[in-house]
């Protein structure tokens, strides 16, 4: 059982939906970013997605791209991202952290060394956008062997024929991408998402969390009502990009979490 499994089991027992938030590690700088992450559990965040900055985030819209550029410009690296996770862990033993990013920084660090370092830093799961099931031997299988969850994205283009393959080596939870598109673009519509979540749930026992296109407490509530939880990234990162204070960012997160938890 990872912290992710434990957390979802607890939420299920309470009959609660999950609220998952995404922020980029090191955005706008290490210290501010750590302060935001440390404040997330109190703002109602059940699972933290921590972005690993990369120069070429091909599945992300301008908001996350710019966050990555700010983080890199402030000197953020993979090593410093794991440091940030470790610093968070010192004050929080239970909130799961999912590292989310692209493969090359991990590939460059070396998979074996990365898994050891990530585990030691208190990372619980990985979402690596550019590793589909076809490339499972690269990181997915070694990560699971090392005791980390490997969380897969399912998308509107993942048809029923392909779905079992996508679910096969997935653990922790399934991240359903609500739209065909990039992060921060179109708005998610609960009416479209509901049937899709049902389709995914028919193929897995894992919790199904929905992300992409959720920007307000209302949408957070609507989406959470048709799934096991909601993820918000770009809308939070936007505020960080605008230079809002840590308090303002966390207040916004609190509203989104309340939305998801009000279901």
């Amino acid at each position: 059982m990872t912290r992710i499994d434990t957390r979802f089991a607890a939420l299920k027992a309470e009959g609660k939906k999950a609220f998952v938030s995404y922020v980029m590690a090191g955005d706008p700088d290490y210290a501010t970013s750590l302060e935001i992450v440390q404040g997330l559990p109190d703002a109602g965040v059940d699972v933290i997605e921590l972005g690993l900055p990369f120069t070429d985030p091909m599945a992300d819209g301008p908001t996350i791209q710019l966050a990555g550029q700010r983080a890199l410009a402030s000197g953020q690296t993979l090593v410093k991202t794991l440091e940030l996770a470790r610093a968070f862990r010192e004050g929080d033993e239970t909130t799961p952290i999912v590292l989310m990013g692209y493969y090359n920084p991990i590939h460059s660090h070396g998979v074996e060394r990365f898994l050891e370092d990530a585990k030691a830093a208190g990372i619980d799961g990985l979402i690596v956008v550019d590793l589909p099931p076809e490339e499972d031997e690269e990181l997915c299988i070694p990560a699971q062997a090392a005791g980390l969850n490997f969380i897969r994205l399912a998308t509107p283009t993942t048809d029923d024929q392909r779905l079992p393959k996508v679910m096969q080596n997935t653990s922790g939870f399934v991240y359903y991408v609500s739209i065909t598109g990039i992060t921060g673009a179109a708005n998610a519509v609960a009416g479209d998402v509901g049937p899709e979540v049902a389709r995914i749930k028919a193929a897995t026992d894992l919790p199904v969390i929905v992300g992409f296109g959720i920007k307000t407490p209302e949408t957070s509530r609507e989406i959470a009502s048709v799934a096991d939880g909601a993820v918000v990234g770009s809308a939070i990162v936007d505020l960080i990009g605008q230079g809002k204070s840590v308090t303002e960012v966390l207040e916004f997160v609190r509203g989104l979490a309340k939305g998801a938890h009000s279901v």
Partner: protein
Amino acid sequence: MANDLFNSFMTGPDEKGRFGQFGGRFVSETLMPLILDLEAEYEKAKTDQSFWDEMNYLWTHYVGRPSPLYFAERLTERLGGAKIYLKRDELNHTGAHKINNVLGQIILARRMGKTRIIAETGAGQHGVATATVCAKFGLKCIVYMGAHDVERQKPNVFRMKLLGAEVVPVTSGRGTLKDAMNDALRDWVTNVRDTFYCIGTVAGPHPYPAMVRDFQAIIGKEAKAQMQEAEGRLPDTVIAAIGGGSNAMGLFFPFLDDKEVQIIGVEAGGKGVNANMEHCASLTGGRPGVLHGNRTYLLQDDDGQILEGFSISAGLDYPGIGPEHSWLHEIGRAEYVAITDIEALEAFQLSCETEGIIPALEPSHALAHVAKIAPGLPMDHIICMNMCGRGDKDIFTVAKALGWDIVEAD
């Protein structure tokens, strides 16, 4: 010699899209079904005679193939050594080898019922070729081009617009070719149903590296037959310039199993391959990584962040290289060298003066290496170099580098 370990170098990629450890399908889940679909359609088309009949007809009547294999007599005399032949792919319609591949992909897109074509472009040659074939078939065409390249390649931007394409200047990242490719992929993720992504080089997720190679291999097939006709034998050395590596892969592929033929790829050395990293020589100055759907040699820092390439030639300005080249490099079947901006400029002028051929800056890199090695080789040593593009697009860049002011007055 690694050559002895392989019965054939022409069987790749494997079913996972790998050439040794290189290649693969490193894309987001949204794109994965599209890539599998493309692979299935390409496999079907590959063995369908009607597909190749259509290609051959258009190669002949629209592109102007076969391109000549030309004995560069005065260049040979000037260099005073090996006998130099140029494969004249700069004479193709639209002025470069790019159209060989575009034609194949657009015919495939039509077979798949796709109505909207997207492409990335650096110097603009692939963008122009794509816009051209889309105009011919009445397809909607959107070309992503780094904002920086839009500025330095104005004539090609205007050409694409004349041909009815929409040119989208890319400002994300640093606004160069790799960012244009990122934005094209973002477009594809968003418009999955009607859109076909026409990639311009032997890179990207499987099946692109193999498919683009197969379409460009017409260059090497022709060269092989033409060389037999001219000399009654194969060349001793084949040479081509490499950015992503499509013209080189096209020339090299049919020669891979002719183990007596030496194969040399020429990368852009920019201001020199050293710690300053002001070059685009992925093989000579990079290390393996994963970008744009494949594992290959990349220019990257210690943290795995991708570095911007630097070259006088916008067409070589890419931090990666096709995965098959990475493999050929690693097993030692092909040799890869780097040529600097200054050396390429000298070769550009050499071609103009001795042969009356204004080459693009990309093949000028290959020619610079020919000029380096030819004088030391015997006169019966035959070199075949791919003259993959003409230099009309580069005259402003070259004029500036040589200190000429050719901006038109009103």
